[in-house]
């Protein structure tokens, strides 16, 4: 069993209840059950459960060679391919139309593709973080020995093996104090390579003495040596030595991954001797984690805006330096539904746990909304799953909307989020009602739904607290009143113009004060009957 096999099936990341509703929506006649979803291993997931054994066995046989079966057997098995792997199987009874099947299959493939991306992105980031953590702890364990001289040998071996370098060397200052020429304590590799490492390490130490105490790849003389990577052991105030790695001439240079690992290892070793610098390293690890969280979050934001006759959309997302957690999404409901789903939300907390929670929440909302479920049902379903899995103690506020594109009717449900603002073409404005509890707190939620009808020129503005909590030097907050005024003043313009006007007002108000929180702004404008 390979490592790949033990990762969760993308299908298992999706809510089975939402999948069941999705299948139900595609059944040719209400109540009829001709569709079912199975995992790539043939486990039942959702839909009709009572197939004749022959159908299930034949499907499982076909899973191994991935071909479609079509004949008078009364059923058809359609594998769902995502990125070259079979992520699931759609089983359909005779009588379900071809177009319906193709549409459903496309919808499922999109969902599974997203779930798989989420799984892979999360895995990769977590694996990287865990590896860096491992090296740090390894360094700490080794460095816990009182005498650096004693651990020099094992340390060079670990460094060389773990990074796949050809040679390694540890050099230390003669005593625990700074200054004095670095002396070679231990090394791995052929003497000529090691001599190059010694020269590079001494140069790096001289460079650090002048300022700068970083991991560095030094360029080597063309006549000698290959790539060299050095990392300081100890810290700026208490330099203890240098750890160096080398590769043979002509080999590829060391990359950021090796830099991170060797830095973590060297840092761990130095920690026992430089305990008061521990706080600085902690801060670096935290920043690293925040950066990972940020990358996960940004990779999951929508790439464009919906293009729909009779409607205009605008979206602005501004990330704060450290904080993550805002998200938004436009969700097409497939199959000529004439419906468009819209989510906006904010996850509490920061860093990788918050980014993962945001990604999960987004997938859950999308699964429910894609099935065309009402916003209240979407939120209730997402909440159920979040509470079941919520080991992290984080929450999310979400505003979920569903637009009926032809009629202009909009249904809205709110879980603890800032209520949207409605401004009519004629200027009348109101804030929609407050919602119920945010997601992740109660085992069940039953949000109320608000229904409004948008006419030509009407605006609906959705936002996160990054807008209303924007602050100025004089320590006030931007607030709902200023937001309302900005929208009113800009009405009559396109959605993009309204968005720009709101942001202009926020920027003018905050006049250069730092942005503390993510800011997200969605503007929906009805321009006419579609």
């Amino acid at each position, binding site marked *: 069993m390979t490592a790949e096999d033990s990762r969760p099936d993308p299908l298992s990341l999706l809510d089975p209840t939402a999948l069941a509703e999705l299948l139900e929506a595609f059944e040719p006649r209400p109540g009829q059950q001709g569709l079912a979803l199975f995992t790539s291993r043939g486990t039942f997931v959702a839909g009709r459960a009572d197939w004749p054994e022959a159908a299930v066995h034949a499907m499982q046989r076909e899973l191994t060679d991935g071909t479609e079966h079509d004949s008078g057997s009364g059923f058809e098995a359609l594998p769902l391919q995502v990125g070259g792997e079979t992520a699931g199987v759609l089983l359909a009874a005779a009588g379900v139309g071809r177009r319906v099947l193709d549409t459903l299959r496309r919808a499922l493939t999109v969902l599974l593709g997203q779930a798989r991306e989420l799984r892979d992105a*999360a895995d990769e980031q*977590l694996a990287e973080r865990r590896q860096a953590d491992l090296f740090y702890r390894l360094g700490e364990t080794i460095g816990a020995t009182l005498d650096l001289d004693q651990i020099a040998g094992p340390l060079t071996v670990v460094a060389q093996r773990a990074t796949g370098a050809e040679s390694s060397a540890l050099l230390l200052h003669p005593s625990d104090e700074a200054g004095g020429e670095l002396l070679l304590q231990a090394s791995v590799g052929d003497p000529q390579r090691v001599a190059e490492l010694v020269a590079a390490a001494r140069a790096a130490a001289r460079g650090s003495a002048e300022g700068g105490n970083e991991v560095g790849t030094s360029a080597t003389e063309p006549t000698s040596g290959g790539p060299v990577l050095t990392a300081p052991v100890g810290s700026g105030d208490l330099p203890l030595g240098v750890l160096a790695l080398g590769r043979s001439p002509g080999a590829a240079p060391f990359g950021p991954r090796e830099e991170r690992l060797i830095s973590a290892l060297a840092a761990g070793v130095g920690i026992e001797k430089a305990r008061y610098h521990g706080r600085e390293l902690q801060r670096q690890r935290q920043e690293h984690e925040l950066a990972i969280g940020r990358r996960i979050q940004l990779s999951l934001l929508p790439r464009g805006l919906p293009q729909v006759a009779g409607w205009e959309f605008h979206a602005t997302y501004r990330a704060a330096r*450290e*904080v993550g*957690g805002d998200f938004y999404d436009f969700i097409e409901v497939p199959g000529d539904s004439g419906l468009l789903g819209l989510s906006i939300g*904010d996850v*509490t*907390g*920061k*860093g*990788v*746990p*918050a980014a*993962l929670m945001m990604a999960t929440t987004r997938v859950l909302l999308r699964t429910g909304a894609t099935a065309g479920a009402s916003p209240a049902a979407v939120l209730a379903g997402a909440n159920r799953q979040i*509470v079941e899995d*919520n*080991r*992290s*103690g*984080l*929450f999310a*506020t979400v505003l979920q909307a569903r637009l009926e594109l032809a009629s202009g009717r909009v249904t809205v449900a709110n879980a*603890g*989020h*800032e209520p949207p603002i409605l401004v009519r073409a004629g200027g009348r404005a109101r804030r929609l009602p*407050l*919602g*119920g*509890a*945010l997601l992740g*707190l*109660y*085992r069940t939620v039953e949000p109320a739904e608000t229904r409004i009808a948008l006419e030509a020129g009407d605006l609906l503005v959705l936002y996160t*607290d990054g807008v209303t*909590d924007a602050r100025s030097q004089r*320590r006030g*907050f931007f607030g709902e009143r200023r937001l309302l005024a900005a929208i009113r003043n800009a009405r009559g313009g396109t959605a993009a113009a309204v968005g720009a006007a709101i942001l202009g007002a926020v920027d003018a108000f905050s006049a250069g004060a730092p942005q*503390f*929180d993510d800011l997200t702004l969605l503007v929906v404008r009805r321009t006419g009957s579609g």
Partner: protein
Amino acid sequence: MDLTVEQEPGAITIFALTGELDYSNFEQLVDAARQAYQQGARRLLLDLAGVEYMGSSGLVALHAVAMIFSGQEPPDPEEGWAAYRTLTDDVEGHTHEFVKLLRPSAQVVNVLERTGMRQFFEVHVDRSAAVASF
């Protein structure tokens, strides 16, 4: 954010917070609560008169503090996907008996109301009445 700890007779601990409670310091509040509980504190009053602004991370902190004083260790965000401990039904749906709020600002009350967390916490405007209510 500054956090000062006082003891009232009757074994009531008071945390007076000043400044802002947000993502950058909410863990500080949770750590302080955990420490107090480990040292035997069982009743906690949070004096929020000096808190000008509470971000959504403040909600995480308040919830975690309430769980600690209900005798349950709150979930650890560091665990992420990995299972740690289940939330029990005891805490949910009831106003907390052992953690109460004193003089929260309008902004803080708004956030609690909007997110549905307001009902978990008894809010007092007078310190001696708050202390006597435990």
